[in-house]
């Protein structure tokens, strides 16, 4: 080390942030935040880039915080929005943004083919490419004649300490718990979760970890999403997938949803990306790569999942579920122990 090296080091370090700032943006680009798994969303963005020539600069969520990490970043950045588009992994998070007036309604021409139940009339959010909440069962640990059929099997004493759910403070489990409260009533939901705790259900950090624990045989079965279940099936794991409560409550169906952000710095390219995401081409791509269930008629359903039309689905008012999510957080924190 000599003086010249030290001076060069100091000089380089001092001007670094300026240099880095200069090369951060290009003329034709769009900033997208997404809580859809990167492994599925990034190829979609890349296809858009090839087709449009617009560069997508994306921010992805980690599995542990899904979908709240990116959502909270959008809220924290509200005074100086960075994102043009938010592609949410579920249809409930948008309401957290809508209530804070952070969303710019936009009715995309591409939304015409999608069912009204999965989009807002004013274009605040539009749903497509759905997932469902399923039970992933390890076939080595669960005999076929004892395969669980519904959520209440998680609380069955026969499976004490052998089941797993993801932390309900994060991710789609938050929405699922809120949807149960809407369907059963809050008291019944709390009683159910208390039963789960008594039955020593394990709390995983994410749905991906639920999959990992079930595949590894750490537990007999667990509650997760269809895309996680599909990954286990693709990897050849000895598992089966149960769509719960098909004779009763129905399965929770969760479309991904897209919205344009208010004050988006690049609203023109943002609209172009929203249009592209809502196209049949993307639903097809999400079906093939991520086993998402298409909502648009005519797009083939992937082999590892069942078509939405064949399922008995829970009747869900997403706005009400969003309200319930905020109302239940304190109680859930105590349930989790945080």
């Amino acid at each position: 080390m000599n003086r010249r090296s030290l001076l060069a080091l100091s000089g380089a370090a001092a001007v670094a942030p300026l240099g880095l700032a200069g090369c951060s943006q290009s003329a034709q680009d769009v900033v997208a935040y997404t809580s859809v798994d990167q492994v599925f969303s990034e190829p979609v963005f890349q296809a858009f880039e090839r087709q449009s020539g617009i560069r997508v600069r994306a921010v992805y969520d980690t599995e542990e915080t899904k979908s709240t990490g990116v959502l909270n970043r959008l809220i924290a950045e509200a005074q100086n929005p960075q994102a043009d588009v938010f592609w949410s992994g579920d249809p409930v998070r948008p309401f957290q943004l809508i209530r804070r007036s952070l969303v710019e309604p936009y009715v995309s021409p591409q939304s015409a083919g999608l069912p009204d139940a999965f989009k807002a009339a004013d274009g605040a959010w539009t749903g497509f490419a759905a997932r469902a909440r399923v039970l992933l069962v390890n076939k080595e640990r669960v005999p076929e004649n004892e395969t669980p059929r519904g959520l209440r099997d998680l609380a069955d004493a026969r499976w004490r300490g052998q089941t797993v759910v993801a932390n309900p403070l994060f991710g789609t489990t938050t929405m699922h718990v809120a949807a149960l409260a809407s369907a059963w009533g809050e008291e019944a939901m709390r009683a159910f979760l208390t039963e789960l705790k008594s039955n020593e259900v394990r709390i995983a950090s994410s749905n991906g970890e639920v999959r990992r624990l079930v595949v590894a045989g750490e537990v007999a079965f667990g509650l997760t999403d269809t895309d996680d279940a599909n990954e286990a099936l693709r990897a050849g794991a000895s598992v089966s997938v149960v769509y719960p409560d098909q004779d009763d409550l129905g399965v929770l169906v969760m479309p991904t949803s897209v919205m344009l952000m208010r004050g988006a710095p690049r609203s023109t390219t943002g609209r172009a990306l929203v249009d592209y995401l809502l196209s049949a081409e993307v639903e097809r791509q999400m079906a093939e790569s991520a086993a998402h269930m298409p909502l648009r008629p005519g797009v083939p359903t992937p082999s590892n999942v069942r078509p939405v039309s064949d399922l008995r689905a829970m009747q869900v008012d997403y706005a009400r579920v969003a309200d319930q999510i905020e109302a239940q957080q304190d109680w859930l924190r105590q349930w989790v122990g945080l």
Partner: protein
Amino acid sequence: MGRPLIAAPRRWQAQVFVTGAAAVVLVAVVPPLVATFGQITDAKDMFAPFATGQTWGLLLRSLALSGVVTVLALGVGVPLGILFARAQFPFQGILLAAHLSVFFLSPFLPTLGWFHLFGREGYLGGPASAQILFSELGCVLALTGCFLPAVTALTAIGARGVDASLEEAARIAGGPWRAAAFVVAPSAAPAIVLAGVIVFVLAFSELGTPMFLRVDVYPALVFSRLGGMDFAPGEAAALALPLVALTAALAWFEQRLAGRRAIAALGGGLRARAPLFAFRPWMLGVGLVAAIVSIAPIATLLFHGALNGGFAEAPRWIGDAPVNTLLASSLAAALMTAVGVVLGFSLAHGHATGRWLDPVAALAFILPAAILGVGIAFAWNHAATNWLYSSVGILVVAYVARYSVLATRTIAAAMAQLPRSLDDAARTIGAGYLARLWLHLGMAPRSMFGAFALALVFSLRDLETAVLLYPPGGEPLTARIFTLEANGPPGVVSALAGLHVLITFAAASVGWLLLRPRSGA
């Protein structure tokens, strides 16, 4: 002691350099802290989180867990550091590099490696090993394995800085073991205490490993206020208040243990010296075990990656992440080293600026990363500073805010080992600030590389700070690994983790080439 003879015309040197270095740290650290604690807007935010016993229980639990990890890491790492620094045995350098490698990764990844190894259906696993892994004991062992190399490395740096003549005299008088126990270890005390503080803080603030192993910890409580549906930064900031007290306690503890002058040294590393311990076969065995314990989870990840085609898939998924990581981390490390030289000198000599700046920077290191990350977003996301916030430069700011204390402390620890008479002599003959600074650097030549390497490694492995604020399209490799972890192709996460280790080694090697002591220096 001679009379200080700093000539008036040279006083500007100290003023300019110290003010500049302090400004860098203050600009990086203070705005996020102010923004974070400014979120506490009412009494409910302040007191509600502490109304339940659960909060205090988790705090005590995390303190206990971190304490056990620190004691274990020090108990194993100090002897190991002295062995690697002052003994001589075959493959010593390779074994040390292998031992250090696990520290290059965010702890979650080695933990994932242990899971593939000792999980119920792991390569060596079964129900019993899985039960241990998914417990407090498993969490303690996993974290100790991850952080142990920090103790080894810093102890080794400290041990190599010990006065050669004192060490030789002690060896002749009492043999190598007594020399190690009564001269080498006490001389390296500042570095060892620094290592202990670092391990304690890292263990306390770690989130990924405890969450994965289903062990409830205090940072998860804080994180639940920032990552959950009810975004409550005010409550999260209030929950961070006990950590201010923890910072003060650690500063006091460190002062008690290492604040007094270490045994005077005459600049270890200036000249080659004979090893303290002659070769014995068991040394090779110990070195091998240390290397294997670190390498095992990484090798498992690599094996898992290779078995599942991860390396073939990796180029498709790695994107610009290595460039983003290397650019931001190396520039941040360079900045932290340059600042650390000035502030470390100041801290080692008890100057006021170094003393009051140190706890401020330490607080940014101790705070849960999520708190600091959100604070940086609040502080820097304005129209006027958008040029920085929306660029990779914000990662440089984040790394400097979080880790600058490490570079400063590393250099201060090395300089504190030098005899005060050296500086007195220089001042007596009228040496200016820069000349004295250069003199100290020359006497502790490895400290700069140590500081750079530490700052670089911490920046490269950072996940929790960066993941909350990386610029769109500018994600670092750690963030990419974690976002791909969800449903990524089998083996890709493992393969990317392996590449992350290689990149860190490469970056540290380049740093060594730039900053290594020149022969005869």
